[in-house]
């Protein structure tokens, strides 16, 4: 526990503040989704923020400012994904490393201690390692690794602000099935952001790639049920008939009834998917297996569409930074 290399807090441990909700006279409500089901959140991407690294990028999502955001409160402020990524390399591997004919990629993802509502530690946890493995597999397919034998590249992502699975005041580790269903969505959006930002940083570093690999998320959602429907839907077969819809780029703060979500890493120019991760149950429209597959297909297609939409931003960011680079270099050459 006591890490001698860091400054440790009080030995007895500290607890995050507990807000008095009822006393304040209003309740936290979920922000509702204001954009259409096929619309993704606005994103901001900038490359070249860390000059000492070979390549770097910063990505930020627009915070979900629904109609229910309450101003003047400390506890319920809209959060948005904020990621920085640096790429170091390609550089020679140490002499002790065994021979590799390809570029050796290693990815690190770390949440900042203030990235989520619960304070994170300084040492990577299992979730962060899991994300890094997914990111590695998404990126490995785009790098043209044969051009750098015996060398390695490090992709380091710091999550300055993550996405939450649940609202501020909901119990964090609750076993309530009602919302544990949409648990894990935060991690999916983070992965999708990581794929996009890492790809931008790799291109900024000038490492040869097949294409940009862009992350996209989609989810199967059910519209909020009325009480009557809720009572009925306890029976499993009824649930099958309830209407579901597929949302692109869902924000965890906006939805509670999500059944399944899917994240892809997509290369548009080759129409390839380098990473596919699906969680949850896709609704079953009938008894036949075929139809279940189609829901999954639609879900994946929507995730790909979300990736295509995000790609425009990445391409524009690069055009901008290249223009800037050319302008700043031309007087030197002339």
């Amino acid at each position, binding site marked *: 526990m006591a890490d001698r290399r*860091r400054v440790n807090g009080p030995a007895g441990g500290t607890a995050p*503040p507990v807000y008095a909700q009822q006393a304040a006279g209003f309740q936290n409500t979920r922000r509702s989704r204001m954009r259409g089901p096929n619309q993704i959140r606005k994103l901001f991407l900038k490359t070249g923020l860390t000059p000492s690294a070979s390549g770097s990028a910063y990505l930020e999502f627009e915070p979900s400012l629904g109609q229910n955001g309450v101003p003047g409160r400390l506890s319920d402020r809209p959060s948005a994904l904020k990621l920085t*990524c640096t790429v170091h390399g390609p550089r020679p591997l140490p002499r002790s490393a065994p021979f590799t004919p390809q570029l050796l990629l290693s990815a*690190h993802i770390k949440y900042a*201690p*203030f990235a989520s509502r619960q304070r994170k530690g300084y040492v990577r946890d299992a979730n962060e390692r899991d994300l890094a493995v997914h990111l590695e597999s998404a990126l490995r397919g785009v790098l043209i690794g044969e051009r750098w034998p015996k060398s390695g590249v490090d992709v380091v992502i*710091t999550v300055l602000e993550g996405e939450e699975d649940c609202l501020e005041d909901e119990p964090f580790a609750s076993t309530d099935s009602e919302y544990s269903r949409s648990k894990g969505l935060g991690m999916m959006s983070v992965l999708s952001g990581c794929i996009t930002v890492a790809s931008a940083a790799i291109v900024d570093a000038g490492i040869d790639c097949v294409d940009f690999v862009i992350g996209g998320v989609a989810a199967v959602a059910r519209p909020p049920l009325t009480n009557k429907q809720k009572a009925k839907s306890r029976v499993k077969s009824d649930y099958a008939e309830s209407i579901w819809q597929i949302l692109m780029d869902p924000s965890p703060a906006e939805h509670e009834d999500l059944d399944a979500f899917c994240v892809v890493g997509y290369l548009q120019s080759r129409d390839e998917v380098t990473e596919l991760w699906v969680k949850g149950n896709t609704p079953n429209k009938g008894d036949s297996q075929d139809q279940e597959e189609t829901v999954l297909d639609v879900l994946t297609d929507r995730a790909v569409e979300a990736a295509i939409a995000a790609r425009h931003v990445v391409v524009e960011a690069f055009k901008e930074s290249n223009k800037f680079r050319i302008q700043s270099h031309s007087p030197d050459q002339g």
Partner: protein
Amino acid sequence: MAIKPASGPTPLGASTSATSPSPSTHTLSFPAQTFAKLAPIPFLHAHLTSSTGARRPSGRTPSESRPPNIHTGSLTHTSGSAVVRIGDTAVVCGIRGEILLTKDVADWKHPEISSIPQEENDGTRRKRRKTEADEIARLNLLVPNVELSTGCSPAHLPGSPPSDLAQTLSHRVLTLLHTSQLLEAAELRIWHHPSSSSSSSILKPQITEPLSTSSNPNNPTITTVEGFEGGGTGDTDGALVAKPQIKAYWTLHITLLFLSLDGNPFDAAWCALLAALLDVRLPRAWWDADLENVLCSPLVSESTRFSLNGLPVPLTVGVFSREDEQGIGGETEKKRAKWCLVDMDGFEEGCVRETVCLVVKGEGDSAEIVRIEKGGGGLFGRGEMRELVGAAGRRWREWKALLDGIRGDGSGDTDMG
């Protein structure tokens, strides 16, 4: 840029004279970066002794520091946050207030707090500050950690324990927080007033207290004290009143993440910390006797900000020196020239052994030296120190203008992205 004409002839002459017998200065030409990599010290020396006046490779004069830039309040899950950039060094500071219950503190003794006299003279204030700083240090209420393994520079890659630099930086920040007595323990205490405990779960009588006193928000210390004294005297009628107790403390978990590192990490980290401290809003907190826990009010209007004990601002200077072995013209007198480089970048830090860090509050005659750190050599003398105090004062004014702007522009909800 200015690099080419300044660097061209001299480093080339210096390096070729060592390797080849015929120094033909203008036939061979490498870009400036190549010289900087191959022979950093002669490269820097050539810049500083250039005929057009001493300029550093970045184009600054030796006494010129990089202009800082602050952005606060962009992180959601923090009580206060700031991003500070100095040149290519960028630091994010996030502060989270968490609650330490006094029952969790081993052998905790309630501090003896005499009610603060309305007119405090300098002596008593200094004494109170001292005891309060001791209280903060004893309870470990300030927990700063510097994180360099964010890929901020190729020298600090993740996957290993914090480097020596990260450890020393954390420690220097911590000691400066304590020795500068920046925060008062009074602002971190969470009180329990037994007299009003019966009504603590209902907000109404509680809410009136801070609202009535919040008319003078410039001094939250007095607000707290008045709050408890007023509560005590207001409810005294009849019943015997137990003394107010400290039930908990705010603990500040301070994380300093370097996004990009290009020299002068301590100045950047400390100023990010200052900016974030100015941005902090701690919710009003009270002890709920029924829940046996501390509850906080979610209203921004009831939250408090810290009244910092001045704004101590550091200035780090490196002393670069080089013996002129043989001047180019052949004068063989051994001369040791030195230059004080203010606010060094990463390249200059690699060429410099002696560094001095001065922390000051105020400037000119009213300047107060908070701390002096010096190491690595004996070239930095009394005269240089006097100059440095002046430079640090100017730097302090520059930072103060920026830091004052943090609270100037209102609620801080305005800036996103």
